[in-house]
């Protein structure tokens, strides 16, 4: 009954080896890119702030991360007295593992032929592909939440409650935008999503979901992912001025390094997911040389653009206030992504229907905003008049001035 293609009927050592090699390559590549990413972020931030940044270890300071990692390895591993020991040790792994698992469903290239096997450049291509990404990103909440709770101290707890509330809030918007992509693709598999974006309009404009869906879902997804990653400007979870260091305040040594690793790994995997969903993944022209290398290069370039954008966000944008964060998530992103989902659905049926719905949405949205404004005004009046009537004391509540 289990339909794992690997084990169906016959099983050859070659297939098993290919899977093992794929996992290893993905893991090592991700680790190395995390190392480079941390260096890239520090170097770029310091450029943007007129500083020099790391420049001692290796050429251009590129080995700085390695040095930091080694330092963290040899530091003392502290476990607070009041912590919940088992959960405290478990939490970093709960953050790290989903970060890696998401990467396994991202297609990083086309197919290659090795020893008579056709190999997809992707660790796994399950039929539930993109749902797996959503599942893993919702599981990632546990690491953050339990790390804060198990530290047995109040700032980490506040940080982790903030973080998990934020992650849950933005997951809804993220899921709805993914649904728009699935709607036009007609499949949940990541390779199908990429394949559906091949081709172009008029031979020039690529048929990526970024353009096909209008830019709105892409922007919403980018914002939601930034919030999901707890990266600036949504890094309330580790707001130094308010919370010391956030949920990982009590962590030190290698466990702290694991959180750090997970954060950057998540940044890279989520950039890769954005590329897969909206920018056609490894789609791009094959210029010269071996044909299997170009998709990988295009994929790396596109992912690199988003990594740069994340660093840029961090350097350029001030941190949001907590109520602004929640308002943005619940009152702006979720309604817009829901409306856009319906709109894309209507467009799938017919263009006329779609444009009518678009007009309806604009009118309805304006009416709703007006209704909310009127409601707010009348509420304010209500409180004052109620107090006037029911106040036992003489005089009014300042209505006369």
């Amino acid at each position, binding site marked *: 009954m289990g339909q794992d293609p690997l084990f169906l009927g016959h099983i050859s050592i070659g297939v098993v080896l290919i899977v093992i090699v794929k996992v290893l390559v993905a893991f090592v590549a991700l680790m190395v890119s995390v190392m480079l990413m941390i260096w890239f972020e520090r170097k770029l931030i310091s450029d943007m702030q007129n500083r020099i940044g790391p420049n001692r270890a290796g050429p251009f300071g590129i080995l700085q991360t390695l040095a930091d990692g080694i330092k963290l390895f040899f530091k003392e591993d502290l476990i607070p007295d009041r912590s*919940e020991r088992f959960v405290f040790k478990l939490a970093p792994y709960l953050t790290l593992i989903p970060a890696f698992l998401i990467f396994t469903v991202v297609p990083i290239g086309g197919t290659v032929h090795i020893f008579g096997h056709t190999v997809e450049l992707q660790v796994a291509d399950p039929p*539930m592909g993109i749902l797996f990404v*959503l*599942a893993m990103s919702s599981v990632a909440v546990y690491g953050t939440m339990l790390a804060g709770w198990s530290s047995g101290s109040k700032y980490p707890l506040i940080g982790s409650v903030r973080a998990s509330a934020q992650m849950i809030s933005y997951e809804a918007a993220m899921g709805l935008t993914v649904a728009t992509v699935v709607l036009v693709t007609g499949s949940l598999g990541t390779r199908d999503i990429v394949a559906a974006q091949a081709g172009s309009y008029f031979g020039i404009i690529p048929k990526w979901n970024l353009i096909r869906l209008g830019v709105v879902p892409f922007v919403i997804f980018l914002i939601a992912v930034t919030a999901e990653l707890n990266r600036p400007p949504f890094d309330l979870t580790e707001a130094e001025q308010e919370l010391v260091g956030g949920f990982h305040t009590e962590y030190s040594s290698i466990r702290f390094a694991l959180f750090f690793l997970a954060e950057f790994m998540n940044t890279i995997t989520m950039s890769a997911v954005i590329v897969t969903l909206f920018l056609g993944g490894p789609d791009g022209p094959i210029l010269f040389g071996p044909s299997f290398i170009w998709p990988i290069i295009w994929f790396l370039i596109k992912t690199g653009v988003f990594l740069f954008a994340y660093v840029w966000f961090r350097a350029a944008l001030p941190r949001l206030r907590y109520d602004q964060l929640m308002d943005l998530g619940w009152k702006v992103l979720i309604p817009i992504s829901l409306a856009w989902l319906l709109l894309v659905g209507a467009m799938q049926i017919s263009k006329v229907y779609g444009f009518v719905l678009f007009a309806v949405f604009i009118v309805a949205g304006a009416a709703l905003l007006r209704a909310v404004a009127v409601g707010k005004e009348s509420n*304010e009046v209500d409180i004052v008049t109620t*107090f006037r009537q029911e*106040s036992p004391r003489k005089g009014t509540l*300042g209505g006369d001035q």
Partner: protein
Amino acid sequence: MVPLLLTAIAKPDLIVFLAAALVVVAGGIGVISYRNPVHSALSLVMTMFGIATLFIEQNAQFLAAVQIIVYAGAIVVLFLFVIMLLGVDRAEVFSRERIRAQRPLAAVAGVVTLGEILILAHATWATGAKAANGPIGNSSDNVFKIAQVVFSTYLLPFEATAILLVIAVLSAVYLSKRVVVNVDEALEAPEDEVSLFAAEETEKRAPKEQSSKNDDEVYEV
């Protein structure tokens, strides 16, 4: 050793089932035996993952993903929220049972449920078909088939469930949102209308703190 390993590899279903069943049972026992509610909730997550694995093994990929997203990713997270925020995250001592005949009744209910499951798993009289009927096609069909059934045959129940959920959410929001104004404070400074609105503003920003602070002297509008 090697032949044993090879026979084991030849039956991947069995291995997956045994591993997942072990995880499910261990998680289930953990839920009821841990003293600390957070540990119990974590065991519940473990059970959810075991069940999701079993779903994948049965080729129900969509169900597996939904199992993780909804149960592990949302519901147990909310459990944990409540446990952490209410501060009941300490070991509990059950010295005295509230309901007297709890244990015997639980045992009877357990036996009845087990019997029911065994009957449903083997006999055909309940639904006219065996419970475990095998795969419904190859796995990529799975999502398609579920969608087709949900949006055609069972459209009405599906939409009714959706409306029910929306109503539940709306009523929860409505019930939890109350405009709280501290009467005494407002009356202390009657000429200062600003303070009244200031109270409302703070209420909007931090509803929890405000409501807990003024719990004994609230005035609802």
